[in-house]
């Protein structure tokens, strides 16, 4: 990683606001610090674009509600059976709605060759990836935070009692979804069939963490003790660590060559 000068990072309009506070001291920042600022600048840029246009978050939320509605035709939403399949339903909603957000992550940069500009910027591939992943993570968590109460109301489920555990599961599994989704979004961004390729690549890859998340969410929503299911926590944590490192190491090859 090359050390970045103060002027280089603030020359970029997108990085301007995010770095204004930390660079006020006026001395060149240390490389490690600069890397974090770069990541935050890219994440900030993505989130700001999304908050201003709301193009994917609105679509993802509307899509999530549509899926919740469609599920009500697949089974009786008032039966006790819902408790047993609640985890699966919830994660299918998250997965389908999440793919919409992840698909746009890199492809929105294709307009006006923004992706080339980002690659040419002082940010390394890994920093670009981390920034995008961070923004996607926040967006996915926001969508999930809206879906969860709606899901509870529609299907008569109470999950407030075990909220901290549920939040932990969602945080871990959503990170798994985010890293793989962001990396594969970078992989498919230049393909003709990217809208088709991303889900084809993404869903099989995500089956292990989704299985863990479904199992844990169902146990938590049923109000049962976790007990033997801690193994799934280990799976989620292991998966997150392995693929975060792998993605950070390989994304440069995907983006730059």
């Amino acid at each position: 990683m090359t050390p970045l000068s103060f002027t280089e990072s603030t020359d970029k309009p997108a990085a301007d606001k995010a770095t204004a506070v930390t660079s006020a001291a006026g001395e060149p920042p240390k490389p490690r610090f600069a890397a974090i600022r770069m990541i935050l600048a890219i994440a900030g840029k993505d989130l700001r674009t999304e908050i201003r246009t709301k193009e994917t978050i609105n679509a993802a939320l509307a899509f999530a509600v549509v899926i919740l509605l469609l599920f009500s035709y697949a089974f009786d939403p008032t039966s006790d059976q819902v408790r047993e399949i609640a985890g699966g339903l919830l994660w299918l909603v998250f997965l389908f709605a999440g793919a919409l957000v992840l698909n746009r992550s890199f492809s929105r940069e294709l307009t006006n060759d923004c992706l080339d500009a980002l690659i040419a910027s002082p940010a390394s591939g890994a920093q670009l990836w981390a920034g995008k992943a961070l923004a996607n993570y926040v967006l996915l968590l926001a969508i999930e935070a809206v879906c969860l109460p709606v899901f509870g109301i529609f299907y008569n489920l109470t999950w407030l009692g075990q909220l901290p555990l549920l939040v932990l599961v969602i945080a871990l599994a959503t990170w798994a979804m985010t890293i793989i989704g962001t990396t594969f979004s970078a992989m498919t961004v230049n393909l003709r069939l990217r809208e088709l390729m991303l889900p084809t690549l993404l869903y099989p890859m995500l089956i292990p963490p989704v299985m863990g998340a479904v199992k844990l969410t169902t146990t938590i929503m049923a109000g049962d003790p976790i007990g033997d299911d801690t193994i799934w926590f280990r799976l989620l944590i292991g998966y997150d660590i392995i693929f975060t490192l792998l993605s950070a190491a390989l994304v440069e090859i995907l983006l730059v060559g």
Partner: protein
Amino acid sequence: MRQKAIYILSAIAAVLLTWNLYKVFMVEPDELNQGAMYRIIYIHVPFAMTCGTGFFVSVVASIAYLWKRDLRYDAIAASVTEVSWVFATGVLVTGSIWGRIAWGIWWAWDPRLTSMLVCWLLLVSYLMLRQAVDEPGQRARLSAVLAIFTFTDWVIVWKSIEWWRTQHPGPVLSIRSGGGMAPGMEAPIYWNALAMACLAAALVLLRWRQEGVKREIDALRRYAHAL
């Protein structure tokens, strides 16, 4: 040279497979609980071994490509993955047939089976990704990265049998668990695995040659286009 290797490997595979079939059907006794049906293990497990070896070779070739940036490594990775996919299909099919008799169901949603299916799907997506990219350098790069992801997933599959033991039996081969199958019954599995490995190597060499020809045609087409 390559032509000769293909013939020799195919011949070894044919001789070994014939000899093993004779051993498995005429010499080996029926198993205590499953009767004659257990013999599918002599196909199922060597398929899985070949498929696993194929995965490993493909990821090594992919890493070699990323390191050396030589398209020949990419051709090896592509050929090996394609052949592995065929063997992965074999594992799923023979496993289903076995499961139908031993468990009474064609498919159990056990983590090991699911993971095998996941890997099979990942190989499909690898092959699909290769088709979706036109530029050879970009295709090699993207698919090499995907192969590394696929292999990491495969490692999770490998470990999963020890983590979640449900419907699929635990390790029975002595090299992994220190016992389970009688030594005499185990030997044909390894001989069959060798035969399958020879067959797979012959198929890979064939596919590799095709990849080379394809690259040549591609280059000629580009040249013609430039003219």
